[in-house]
């Protein structure tokens, strides 16, 4: 049996396409765990934000601490299954540092610009979902779709839902992150 150049070109294109789809699936499967974790934390945080008054900031600090620890654990678990322990620890540490950098940047500008509570509530989901949209440009369009949809729902809540904003964010952003996470892991 011989293979002509046309067939070889088609087969190599098929190999490249399959490799790209497989990498996308692997990224989606790992990202699903992060999305479920942060989705649960957002549901809890936004659901209780308007009931805790002065303690709301403490609630979010606790939730963020759980989120960073969970993020580090998920990263460590994923990497340690195929790399030595020290590499897994380094990757987990870099993930936490990257997350803290984003959070520090956001916190700095929330404080410098004297955001009100509604602005703060809308800022974090819009910031994270914009990052998700950008990530999708390289890692798979599902991230961009989820990011764009959640950004739009966040803005809709901010402009049109008045005092119901936090509950809206709990359901749409937190709930959608959980649903999106399970969908990506399917």
């Amino acid at each position, binding site marked *: 049996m011989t293979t002509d150049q046309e067939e*070889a*070109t088609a*087969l190599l294109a*098929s190999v490249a396409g399959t490799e790209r789809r*497989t*990498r996308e*699936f*692997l990224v989606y499967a790992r990202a699903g765990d992060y999305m479920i974790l942060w989705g649960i934390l957002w549901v809890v945080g936004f659901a209780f934000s308007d009931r805790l008054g002065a303690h709301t900031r403490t609630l979010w600090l606790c939730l963020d601490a759980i989120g960073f620890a969970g993020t580090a654990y998920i990263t460590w678990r994923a990497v340690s299954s195929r790399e030595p322990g020290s590499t897994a620890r380094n990757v987990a540490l870099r993930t936490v540092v990257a997350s803290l950098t984003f959070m520090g940047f956001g916190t700095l500008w929330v404080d410098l610009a004297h955001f009100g509570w509604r602005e703060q509530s809308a800022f974090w989901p819009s910031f994270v979902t914009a990052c998700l949209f950008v990530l999708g440009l390289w890692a798979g369009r599902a991230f961009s779709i989820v990011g764009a949809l959640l950004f739009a729902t966040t803005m809709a809540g901010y402009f049109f839902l008045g005092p119901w904003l936090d509950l809206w964010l709990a359901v749409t952003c937190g709930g959608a992150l959980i649903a999106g996470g399970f969908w990506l892991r399917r």
Partner: protein
Amino acid sequence: MVDEVIHQSMRLKIMSSLNVLPKADWLDFSRLKAILQTTDGNLGAHLETLSKAGYIAVDKRFEGKRPQTRIRATPAGRKAFADHVAYLRAILDSAPE
């Protein structure tokens, strides 16, 4: 020399997908089916051919009460895949300008 086992289009796709994974990692049957957009029967038949050639390892187990089938490429399978891709590239390289 053409490797008839791996040359078939669906089997080449299966090996392309498994070759992306780290060596110790397995891929679920259902996930592989979704990546390749094929049917249970078609995928199962080609996996059997690849398994008989020693190119893949298939692990059937229970996760809770649910049966789960996992697949990964063997070292022989990875080598056969690399050799076949090199063979296809050589055909293109030998094309007259």
